[in-house]
């Protein structure tokens, strides 16, 4: 078994051997610390305080320091530290605020040495000076840090953080006089041990408590901090202002952080809640841990590298009452399981593809792309400095663009802007939209005013001329997540097709998706809806088993007939005479909403009237909309849906409608067609969609003078007591729509400025600027 592998390291004389192993403790551990000989470890907790010898095959209990008849709170340890100069010296921090030192050299059973009861609250952390034998530092919940000289009975100096609890204190390894302390309010302070009156430097490192910090063993200026905000940050403290060098985002609050010996960029972390694993991160690669230890069944409370110059042994104690030795080579490496490829579509059909460099190099040999155009417009590679880990981190990014002038997405924007969706009778809407569609050379399913919309369009749509795009890839922000989640390892046979008129993807993954072994979060919650769109309608690819997608051939003649027939005035006349369709469509709809489409039909296809069930055409329309949607043309589906409203809505299930709406709105927003998108939201009847308008309706305004946010009212600043937006024309405060020139930043009431500009093009404020408004 791999776990049994043994590691032997020679470290200038001393030799470390061992294997991954664990031992059961009697009680949960709160902290551990290693003796400098790397052969013993001390475990401390509320009701445990023991020293274990680390042998080759197992941990052996060597000494129980919890002696005495009655358990005392002095022995309830929050932290423990072993002196790195003196093998006999230990210190513990008790939950009741006492700092205790222990001398293993004492002949009696009780090794307790000194008791410092100066802190008023729990002591969270104790720390020995790395080179000085008698100096001990403590940090407590009461907000004070105290420095003790073990030769004296009281503290030598007290440092007041002037804020909430101290969570960690650490002496700098290289800088003799310096120590860092971290606080519950997110601050980190740097102190000179000789100057207790004030700290040398203070900065806010995290949002919420900073639970831990660790100085880099080699780089004298680097300090790693971990906080409740789930981040590990690495700070360069050598510069004038602490500079954030790296930031690792973990999945839970960070309880401990420890730099890995001999590996400049590695650090180990464990969490205080929820997550039981220990991670080793390469700070340059903050998204995937380099290694992960999964042995513990409850949160890990203490971690320590066994030897200051050996990167392969990690010790840990946990709330699950166990002590573990982890071997680095036995760690699981999430990096190996991560899928290092990413694929993303641009708005205009451009395609970006990022992959591990080795993979790209290997694949360039064969011919993966069948399309006739595949021009990587740029190709980027980034190489890390030579380190074993770096090989994994280098990747190549290729970007392919669609043929200029071929297709493009102009039609989408034009159509979206020109389609009329509401506000006029149905007949006019249809006419208008039909005209738009014809002019733009789009498919034309829109019915003429006087004839039945459904039949011709249901069958009339041929895929030709359609710009197809894969909705899945259009969804915003999917790129990176998809890459990480799609860890199917093997499936690297993606074929990328770049059609001449548009972009078409056939992706093996997509077909797998159809299969259903999709992880639930594959599409970030959009799964059920999105699946329809996952496979593209390459005609052969269209799932033939789905009867709704098979289009009757005989439809074509009908289509021509209707498309070519211009809506003549005499027909309109007919319509007016018809009792069913007299007056505005809206009236009809409100009078007989269920029958209205049928009544429309009866005008030109009276013959069918008697034979066909009333909902016959509803089915056809539904099929048509489905067809369009599956081709990727949600624009058509949604537009028709809105215009026909009640007439078809009942035939299409809510989920699907909602999905079409969200897809279309998403597209519109990516094209920045905010107005159209808002109109669609407004007109939708789906509850989930129309509430999109209700979300985040707050408008945040900053004061134009002091640049601070104006919290209470939008027009007067609390801080500088000035009105932020004065109208340059009437000199009153603008409380509603404010318009201003981007050149001179003067402006005012929309109406006033418009009026002003009629008479003059100079700025009304008199600044002499020739204002421009678009």
């Amino acid at each position: 078994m791999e776990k049994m592998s043994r590691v032997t390291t020679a470290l200038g004389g001393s030799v470390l051997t061992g294997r991954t192993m664990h031992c059961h403790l009697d009680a949960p551990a709160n902290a551990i610390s290693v003796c400098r000989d790397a052969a013993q470890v001390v475990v401390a907790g509320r009701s445990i305080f023991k020293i274990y010898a680390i042998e080759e095959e197992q941990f052996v209990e060597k000494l129980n320091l919890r002696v005495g008849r009655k358990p005392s709170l002095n022995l309830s340890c929050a932290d423990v530290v072993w002196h790195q100069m003196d093998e006999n010296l230990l210190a513990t921090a008790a939950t009741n605020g006492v700092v205790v030192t222990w001398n293993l050299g004492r002949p009696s059973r009780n090794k307790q040495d000194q008791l410092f009861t100066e802190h008023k609250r729990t002591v969270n952390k104790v720390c020995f000076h790395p080179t000085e034998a008698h100096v001990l530092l403590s940090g407590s919940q009461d907000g004070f840090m105290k420095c003790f000289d073990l030769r004296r009975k009281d503290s030598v100096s007290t440092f007041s953080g002037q804020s909430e609890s101290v969570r960690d204190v650490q002496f700098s390894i290289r800088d003799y006089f310096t120590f860092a302390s971290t606080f519950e309010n997110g601050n980190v302070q740097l102190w000179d041990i000789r100057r207790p009156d004030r700290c040398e430097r203070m900065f806010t490192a995290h949002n919420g408590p900073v639970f831990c910090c660790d100085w880099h063993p080699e780089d004298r200026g680097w300090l790693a901090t971990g906080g409740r905000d789930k981040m590990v940050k690495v700070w360069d403290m050598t510069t004038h202002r602490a500079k954030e060098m790296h930031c690792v985002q973990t999945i839970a609050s960070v309880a401990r952080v420890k730099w890995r010996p001999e590996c400049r960029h590695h650090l180990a972390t464990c969490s205080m809640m929820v997550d039981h694993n220990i991670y080793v991160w390469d700070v340059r690669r903050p998204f995937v841990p380099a290694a992960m230890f999964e042995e513990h069944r409850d949160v890990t409370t203490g971690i320590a590298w066994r030897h200051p110059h050996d990167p392969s042994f990690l010790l840990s104690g946990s709330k699950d009452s166990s002590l573990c030795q982890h071997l680095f080579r036995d760690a699981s490496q999430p990096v190996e399981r991560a899928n290092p490829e990413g694929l993303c579509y641009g708005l205009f059909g451009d395609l970006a593809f990022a992959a591990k460099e080795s993979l790209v190099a290997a694949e360039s040999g064969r011919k993966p792309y069948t399309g006739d155009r595949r021009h990587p417009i740029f190709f980027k590679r980034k190489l890390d400095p030579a380190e074993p880990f770096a090989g994994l981190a280098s990747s190549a990014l290729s970007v392919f663009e669609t043929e200029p002038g071929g297709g493009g997405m102009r039609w989408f924007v034009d159509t979206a802007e020109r389609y009329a969706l509401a506000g006029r009778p149905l007949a006019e809407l249809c006419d208008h939209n039909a005209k738009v569609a014809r002019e733009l050379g789009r498919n034309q399913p829109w019915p003429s005013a006087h004839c039945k919309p459904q039949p011709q369009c249901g069958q009339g749509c041929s895929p030709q001329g359609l710009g197809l795009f894969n909705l899945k890839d259009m969804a915003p922000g999917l790129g990176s997540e998809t890459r990480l989640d799609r860890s199917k390892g093997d499936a690297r046979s993606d074929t990328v097709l770049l059609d001449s008129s548009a972009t078409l993807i056939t992706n093996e993954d997509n077909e797998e998706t159809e299969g259903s072994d999709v992880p639930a979060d594959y599409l970030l919650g959009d799964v059920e809806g999105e699946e329809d769109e996952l496979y593209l309608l390459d005609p052969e690819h269209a799932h033939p088993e789905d009867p709704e997608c098979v289009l009757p051939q005989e439809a074509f003649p009908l289509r021509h007939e209707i498309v070519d027939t211009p809506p003549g005035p005499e027909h309109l006349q007919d319509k007016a005479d018809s009792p069913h369709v007299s007056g505005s469509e809206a009236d009809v709809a409100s009078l007989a909403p269920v029958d209205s489409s049928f009544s429309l039909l009866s005008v030109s296809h009276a013959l069918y009237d008697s034979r066909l069930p009333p909902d016959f055409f509803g089915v056809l329309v539904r099929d048509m909309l489905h067809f369009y949607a599956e081709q990727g043309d949600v624009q058509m589906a949604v537009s028709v849906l809105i215009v026909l409203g009640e007439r078809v809505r009942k035939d299409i299930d809510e989920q699907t409608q909602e999905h079409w709406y969200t897809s279309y709105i998403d597209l519109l927003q990516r094209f920045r067609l905010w107005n159209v998108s808002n109109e669609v939201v407004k007109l939708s009847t789906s509850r989930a969609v129309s509430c999109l308008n209700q979300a985040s309706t707050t408008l945040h305004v900053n004061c134009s003078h002091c640049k601070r946010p104006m919290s209470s009212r939008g027009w007067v600043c609390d801080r500088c007591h000035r009105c932020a937006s004065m109208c340059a024309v009437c000199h009153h405060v603008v409380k509603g729509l404010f318009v201003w020139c981007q050149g001179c930043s003067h402006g005012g009431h929309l109406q006033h400025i418009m009026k002003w500009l009629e008479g003059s093009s100079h700025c009304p404020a008199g600044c002499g600027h020739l204002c421009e408004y678009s």
Partner: protein
Amino acid sequence: GGRDQDEELGIRIPRPLGQGPSRFIPEKEILQVGSEDAQMHALFADSFAALGRLDNITLVMVFHPQYLESFLKTQHYLLQMDGPLPLHYRHYIGIMAAARHQCSYLVNLHVNDFLHVGGDPKWLNGLENAPQKLQNLGELNKVLAHRPWLITKEHIEGLLKAEEHSWSLAELVHAVVLLTHYHSLASFTFGCGISPEIHCDGGHTFRPPSVSNYCICDITNGNHSVDEMPVNSAENVSVSDSFFEVEALMEKMRQLQECRDEEEASQEEMASRFEIEKRESMFVFSSDDEEVTPARAVSRHFEDTSYGYKDFSRHGMHVPTFRVQDYCWEDHGYSLVNRLYPDVGQLIDEKFHIAYNLTYNTMAMHKDVDTSMLRRAIWNYIHCMFGIRYDDYDYGEINQLLDRSFKVYIKTVVCTPEKVTKRMYDSFWRQFKHSEKVHVNLLLIEARMQAELLYALRAITRYMT
């Protein structure tokens, strides 16, 4: 005029009952709407925008605008912003929680809100008419309100694994936060004697003003304001007496501050002090402890009225000790809540902080007093009643700083708020200002909420590991 006309038309015009937002605090002591400063005005505006009303709780809490802001923000988020539970569920859970303490004030408010967001009126006929999923929550509600230390991971498991009636973890955390919020708010409502809103039962009368001075609200609220007429009952007690009370308290605080380092209690002594305080807190009850029959309108929302705090305290039930150093809000609770119900951990955390650290450095007529010791004693006393122990606290201080009538008040507000009387409110800290008494209430409700949350969250954590 118009009024006569309305009466001719047979329209009955409601008239407010009671004497302002609180029955304990004279109306003239409470800020009048219209005379607030800019900050308070902004708060009122926010409150009105969020709730569509300016309720009496807000009018009393505005004594402490800094807290009120955080309170309103949290409540708004819990009830109206993104969250795992549907809106009507949220209000219904609020009703369930408030009904545990027979707090008709909150129940009435949330019945209105519940119907307003489209809740099914049938549910209001009792918990058994609500969906099974909500019924399952009843047990947790009960235990959480009265004996939170009994919550185990089995309770959690029962809710999370109930087939089609299962709660998701996120929903459960949302529900737990709502339950604890409304349990505590019920404490505040009774602790400050909040009057019913005018549009709710007991908040108005249709009688012409002259007929009687009889106060309906005292009956329907299940809340006796014993002394009706002597608003200034405090002044019956000799002024000098209560003056010395404050002086004595100040003196004790000074002494404790000074001799803290000298006299070192042994470990056993410290441990037993906690146990003594915990045990004694069981028996701290007001003498005029009479049975209150819950008003009919409210009782339908909860089964098992018998299950209350009192039952076991009389039998002296053993409360196990919960060590805050092993599971505390800052390190553990926060992370769990924020993980399952994003942003709420942050909001509650801020609220706890503000409540715990709030001070104006005043005590009655004294200025520039460091009250942190007193505030910590109150906070820790409440946690002590719930069996929550701070290793680094000397529980002897509690006895020094909190006198019996104060303990009675605290105990009643936190454990059986429905029994708070005006006499209790008046008889503690007689020289202190009303704003200071409201301040005490803020400490009480936040400490109670945190205690309940700690137990519930610990159970959830245990379930998850």
